[in-house]
C-alpha cells in the first residue's frame, strides 16, 4: 500500500467520523472512560491479589499492562463505534512506528533493557541499591527508567540502559550483612592479645554470634599493623552495629593499652651534610628516634 492510498483512506476515515451520529460519539466517549476506569480497577485488583507471590516490582508492571490493555481494547471498540477502520489506522501506525523507531533508538533500548531487568530482577521496589556513584532506595522501575531516592532525599532517575551497563550493588537482598572494621595498631603488640581484645569488642548484642566474628591480620604498613575485624549483623541493624563496633573496638584497645597506629614519617638528617633520609615509623618508636643524636626532626 503506497502512502497516497493510505492518506486517501485516512481522509475517508475522517469523513466517516464526521458523518457519525451524535449518539455514537457519546457512546464512544463512554467506552473510553469505561476503559480507563475498568483498567485501573482491574490493575488494582491484580495488585492486591498477586503482590505477595509476585513481589512489588512484577505487580507494578502487571498492573500497568493490565490497565493499558483494557484501555486499548475499549478504545478500539470506541473507534469501531465511530466507524473508523482499524486496519487503516494500523497501516498508518506501521509507517509511524518505522519513523519513530529511527528517531527513538535510545528509548527503544531503554524499553528492551527494562524488559531484561524485569526478567532478571537484580533489585525490586523498596530495596536499597548502589548504582555507579548513587546509593538510594528504589522508588519505581518502569519500562524506560528507574527512580531512586537517595539518603539525602534527592530523586535520581536512571535510564534502564545505564542500569544494564552498570554494576549494581543490592544492600538489602540478603538478610544479614558483614561489616569489616579496619584498624592500624602498634606493630609490636602481642598478636594473641590483639585477637582476644578485638573479639571481645565484637561480643555485643547486635553482632551475630553465628557467623562468628573473625580477626584478619592484613599486613604491616607504614601506619603499623593493619588488622581487620569482620562481624555480621542483621541487615536492619547494620548502621547501629557499625557505629557501636567502632566505639567498642577503640575502647577495648585503649583499655588494653594497645595504641592505634597512624602514618608517621620521620625525617633524619646526617650531620655530615649527606642526603636527607626519610623513613616511616609508627609513633611508638618516636621516643627511640628522639634519643638518637643523629636525628634532628
Amino acid at each position, binding site marked *: 500500500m503506497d502512502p497516497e492510498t493510505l492518506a486517501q483512506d485516512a481522509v475517508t476515515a475522517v469523513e466517516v467520523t464526521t458523518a457519525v451520529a451524535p449518539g455514537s460519539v457519546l457512546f464512544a466517549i463512554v467506552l473510553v472512560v469505561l476503559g480507563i476506569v475498568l483498567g485501573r480497577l482491574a490493575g488494582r485488583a491484580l495488585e492486591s491479589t498477586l503482590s505477595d507471590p509476585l513481589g512489588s516490582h512484577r505487580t507494578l508492571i502487571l498492573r500497568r499492562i493490565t490497565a493499558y490493555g483494557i484501555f486499548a481494547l475499549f478504545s478500539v471498540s470506541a473507534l469501531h463505534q465511530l466507524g473508523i477502520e482499524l486496519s487503516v489506522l494500523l497501516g498508518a501506525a506501521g509507517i509511524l512506528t518505522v519513523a519513530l523507531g529511527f528517531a527513538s533508538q535510545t528509548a527503544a533500548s531503554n524499553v528492551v533493557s527494562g524488559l531484561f531487568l524485569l526478567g532478571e530482577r537484580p533489585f525490586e521496589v523498596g530495596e536499597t541499591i548502589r548504582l555507579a556513584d548513587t546509593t538510594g532506595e528504589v522508588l519505581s522501575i518502569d519500562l524506560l527508567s528507574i527512580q531512586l531516592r537517595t539518603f539525602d532525599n534527592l530523586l535520581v532517575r536512571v535510564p534502564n540502559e545505564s542500569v544494564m551497563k552498570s554494576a549494581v550493588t543490592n544492600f538489602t537482598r*540478603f*538478610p*544479614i550483612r558483614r561489616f569489616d572494621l579496619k584498624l592500624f595498631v602498634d606493630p609490636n603488640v602481642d598478636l594473641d592479645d590483639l585477637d582476644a581484645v578485638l573479639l571481645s569488642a565484637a*561480643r*555485643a*548484642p*547486635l*553482632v*551475630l*554470634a*553465628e*557467623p562468628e566474628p573473625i580477626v584478619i591480620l592484613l599486613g604491616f604498613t607504614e601506619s603499623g599493623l593493619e588488622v581487620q575485624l569482620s562481624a*555480621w*549483623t*542483621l541487615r536492619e*541493624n547494620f548502621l547501629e552495629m557499625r557505629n557501636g563496633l567502632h566505639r567498642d573496638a577503640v575502647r577495648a584497645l585503649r583499655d588494653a593499652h594497645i595504641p592505634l597506629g597512624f602514618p608517621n614519617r620521620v625525617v633524619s638528617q646526617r650531620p655530615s651534610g649527606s642526603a636527607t633520609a626519610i623513613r616511616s615509623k609508627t609513633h611508638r618508636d618516636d621516643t627511640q628516634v628522639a634519643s638518637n643524636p643523629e636525628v634532628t626532626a
Partner: protein
Amino acid sequence: METGAGDAEQTLQKRGEMNRAGAIWWGPLEVPCKSVHVLEIGPLELQVERHDREWRIRHREYLREDLQQPDGRLPTQSVRPVRSLGEPPVETWERILRIGMDTAAEPLELVAQTADRPIVTVPADPFLIPPRGQVLLFVSTPLWIAIECRNQRLFEVPIGRPSDTWVGARTGPGQAAYANRTQCRQELDEVPFRPHRALSPLHVSNRSSRALPLERVVIAMPYLSLYADDDQTIWTERVDVTIDDDKTISAIRPGAPEQAASARTLSARRTAPPSGRLGQMLASVF
C-alpha cells in the same frame, strides 16, 4: 531477698540451699504515688515511677565492669521516693518511657515472658551423645520482663539482652535468633537458681547408628509458656528431640514439665505454633 551484687558464690549456689521467698519479682506492682519501685535482677535494673497522671519506666543493663557476675544476681526490690522533676539526673539511664494516663491509679503488673525469637543454645564444651543414647538436659534461657496494664502490654525488655545470631544460610532463607550457651547439666541439683531465666527440660534421643555431637539446639521460645514452681524456679514445657539417621523429629510436650508438676502457669506463650503434627514438630527444634 537481699544479696550481695556481684557475689560469684551465690551464682553457684545449689538448688535447695537458700530461702527463695523473696525471689518473686513478677505480679502486681504496688507503688505509692510519688514513689519509684526499683527492681534489680540479673544484669537489669528497672525503675517504675508513679506520678499523679503518669508512669515513668527506666531501665539499664549493667556493664561487665560494674558487676563481676551480673547474670547471677538474685532479684532485689525496693521503693524510694521519686526525685523532683527539676533535679538533674543522678545517672545516665539507658532508656526512659513515659506512660500518660487519666489517673495513675490503674495498677501495673510485671509479667515474665519468653524471648520473642528462637534461641540457639550452644554447649559450652563439646557434648557427645553415643549411638542409641539419650540425655535429659536442663537448658536455661533469658527471660523478658513485660509491664501490663489492664492486660494490655505497655512495655517489655530482656533481662540481659542476648546477642543476635542467625539460623540458616547467609544468602538464603533463615531466621534471626538469640545466642545462648549451656553447660548441658543433667542433674537438677547442679542448676544454679536464677529466677530471671527459664529452665527448659530438653530430652535428646539419638537413634542413629553413629555418635551425635550436639553442636546447637534451636528452641522456639515464642511457642513456649512459662510455669513457676513452689520454689520460684521458672520452667517451660519439655522439648523432645529425636535424631534418626536421616531425620530429626522434635516436639513440645504440653503442660508443666514433670520436674515441676505442681507449677502454676505464669504466662502464656507468645504465639501459637503452626497447627498439626508437622507444625508441632517444627515448633520446637530446627
